[in-house]
């Protein structure tokens, strides 16, 4: 059970910041229908050159994952102790 939860944790983090597959398959298109957060980040930073905006977005992403993972890890530890 802890291993299953660990796998979910790592996959969730990886998929939250998924970049390469989206970039190669659709690069966020058509329009912005498949634009995940990391694609927005890339577009803002390297196409519109709004570095400050995209840095702020990166921090927001990080804090989101950090918070969600924190709650999840607390639950994981409770499962382990049982």
């Amino acid at each position, binding site marked *: 059970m802890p291993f299953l939860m*660990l796998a979910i944790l790592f996959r969730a983090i990886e998929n939250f910041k998924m970049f390469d597959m989206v970039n190669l398959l659709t690069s966020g298109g058509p329009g912005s229908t498949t634009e995940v957060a990391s694609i927005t980040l890339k577009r803002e930073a390297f196409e519109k050159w709004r570095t400050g905006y995209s840095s702020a977005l990166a921090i927001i*992403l990080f804090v989101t994952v950090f918070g969600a993972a924190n709650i999840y*890890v607390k639950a994981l530890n409770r499962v382990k102790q049982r």
Partner: protein
Amino acid sequence: MNTPVTAHSVAEPSSRSKLIASVLVVTYAVITILPLLWIFLTGFKTPPDSIAYPPRILFEPSVEGYVNLFTTRSRQTPEFLASLPPPQTWYERLVRSRNMVIGGPSKVVPRFLNSMIIGFGSTFLAVCFGTIAAYAFSRFRVPLADDLLFFILSTRMMPPIAVAIPIYLMFRHLGLSDTKLGMILLYTAVNVSLAVWLLKGFMDEIPREYEEAAMVDGYTRLQAFFKVVLPQATTGIAATAIFCLIFAWNEYAFAVLLTSGEAQTMPPFIPFIIGEGGQDWPAVAAATTIFFIPILCFTILLRRHLLRGITFGAVRK
């Protein structure tokens, strides 16, 4: 372990649930294997066959994709081709029949070697550090252990695209940009978090009494670690090594942003093949097939450890 141990549950599953399970497994296998099979077949097609519609399942096999992958070619006029001496080897003949001349070997071999060095190097380092750190977290009373573990995990949380520029600046100051050492260190840093978390789970499963008994018998802590704990943790180490290698092997975002020549790995190189003189899908498929082989071999080699470990665990508990 001399007698083969087979895992079996106490209650034999009913034939209906067996049927459902096998249908699910077969469906999943077909879904995952079809793209691989398609890529493998495309590698042996000619370029016109590869983009034919409807897609050709039966075709005349050709190694043109592989020849195109390993060489750089240039298109020449028929007059110039006629003035050349006749082709010496079979691959020259093949290229000549497409009105082209071989310019030299392509960069695929150095790129492949880069992938091998960076992938296996970083996996080795990550597993070494991960094992030691996981042992410490599992056995000793580390102050703020939970927070430290979470901090290790948080190194994974930023999207690579966001941290690539700071890392690039750091690498430039340290003289590591576009070097194999730099990429090994970077992938090790990313993989250590996975290795520590996975291995800590495995280490917690190994009873503390084993090494305590060894230490009572006169082993030092280090000897007990190497002779008692490590053999027990083989399963965990093998699984961790596979996951670390798969990550380092397939990593695209860091590789495309931080390497350009010297240390470029296969993932950024494969899309680069598409752009060279038309869309050469057979060459891309050939590159993907070759790229896929080492990780397949590695997983098959380690699979024995994985299976053995699973039965070990079932017996021990």
